[in-house]
């Protein structure tokens, strides 16, 4: 692994994103629009304060999952991954390069979404706002890691996109957005306990409800551990030698 190569990958991914203006605009603006839609739907009710934090956790995760699974699938099928692996590139260089680039985009995305929710739409946040951003970025890296991993199991971009309902929607259903997790049927609560998005949502909710940050750091550590695990699984799917 070398910082030079990791940064080269991150820089290259960012240049590619900058060239794809439409994707970039969707990445940054769409979460803001959806959050605003929700705020508007529940005007004059306390609902936005309840679901707002969950949304802030969901968007970075979903968006980065989708973008990463499609872009790395392109690297795999277009031959550029094979070429890179035939060069002096470590697997970690490749993975961390992607994680860095998309983590940076996620930071901007989260800054816009949090700024909008807290500044304009009046979302009540008791804890430190910067910590919301940290949770969002770690959450995005988790999405990137899972996206990298599933891209190994998809042959086409179509299939890659289908992994979204398979892996992401169950997490959204069980993360506490629709019903608090402790009110779920017992088995489903257990399942929600092992899904990483639950912890990201818990962290966001804690931050809006209280100024104590101990639980937030614990949840954050769980999400980060899943992200590292996802990257390790992703590394296992990057093979220099293929059939």
């Amino acid at each position, binding site marked *: 692994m070398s910082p030079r190569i990791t*940064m080269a990958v991150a820089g290259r991914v960012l240049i590619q994103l900058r060239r794809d203006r439409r994707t970039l605009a969707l990445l940054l603006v769409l979460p803001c629009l959806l959050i605003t839609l929700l705020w508007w739907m529940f005007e004059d009710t306390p609902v936005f304060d309840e679901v707002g934090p969950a949304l802030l956790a969901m968007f970075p995760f979903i968006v980065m999952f989708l973008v990463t699974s499609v872009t790395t699938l392109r690297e795999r099928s*277009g031959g550029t991954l094979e070429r890179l*692996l*035939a060069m002096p590139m470590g697997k970690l260089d490749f993975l961390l390069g992607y994680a860095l680039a998309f983590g940076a985009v996620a930071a901007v995305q989260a800054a816009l979404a949090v700024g909008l929710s807290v500044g304009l739409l009046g979302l009540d946040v008791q804890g430190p706002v910067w910590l919301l951003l940290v949770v969002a970025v770690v959450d995005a890296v988790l999405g990137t890691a899972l996206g990298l991993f599933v891209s190994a199991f998809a042959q086409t971009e179509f299939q890659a996109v289908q992994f979204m309902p398979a892996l992401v929607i169950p997490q959204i259903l069980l993360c506490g957005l629709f019903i608090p997790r402790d009110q779920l049927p017992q088995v489903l609560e257990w399942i929600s306990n092992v899904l990483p998005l639950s912890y990201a949502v818990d962290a966001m909710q804690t931050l809006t409800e209280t100024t104590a940050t101990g639980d937030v750091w614990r949840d954050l550590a769980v999400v980060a551990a899943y992200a590292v695990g996802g990257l390790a699984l992703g590394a296992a799917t990057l093979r220099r*030698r293929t059939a």
Partner: protein
Amino acid sequence: MTSRGAVEIRGLRVVRGKHVVLDGLDLTIGGGVTGLLGPSGCGKSTLMRCLVGVQQISSGTVQVFGEEAGSGQLRDRVGYVTQAASVYDDLTVAENLRFFARVLGVDKQEVDRVVQSVDLDSQRDRVVGQLSGGQRSRASLAVALLGSPDLLVLDEPTVGLDPVLREDLWALFHGLADQGTAVFVSSHVMDEAERCHRLLLMREGRIIADGSPAEIKEQAGADSIDAAFLAIVRRDAA
């Protein structure tokens, strides 16, 4: 051009699914321009992938400059061009090359040099996706030239190029070979064979003829490589 023993292959066997692609192949490749000729599907690409170390092999050894193919020490000494242009369509030619140059850790001036050597100077700031097929494959070739590797493995680098460009590229390969690079290039276009120092004819995973173009024509008693290939295949089948 006699061998320096750039590549030593012993008993190489590759099985893909149930299909045996290469079965106990022995081959030594030295300096100069070595051409690998054969119909598509005969195992050319698989053999090339073995040299670069990206192909899973069942048994046998592939050594490049005395190291196992694909080992860490070799990765900046071997340049590889796949059949499909392995460059990023959404980056410009120069951006692609700057990226790969950083990965390889070679000087930025290398980018200018390789762009010139594949004659893409006027296209260097255009996005690769907007280039013609031939220009894209030249961009991909340029990446392989970065850092002047000691072995160049080129899988059909001249497909879809006009005759003038093909001529230029062959001159480039010979220039590199003269400077000491071992060039291993595959093609299914027989007329390109004449320009190789040494020719390998491949069919169904086996090398059925090996020698200079003149030697091969003489062996087969034919006056073109095309006719020689046909004669050798017939003799081989009999």
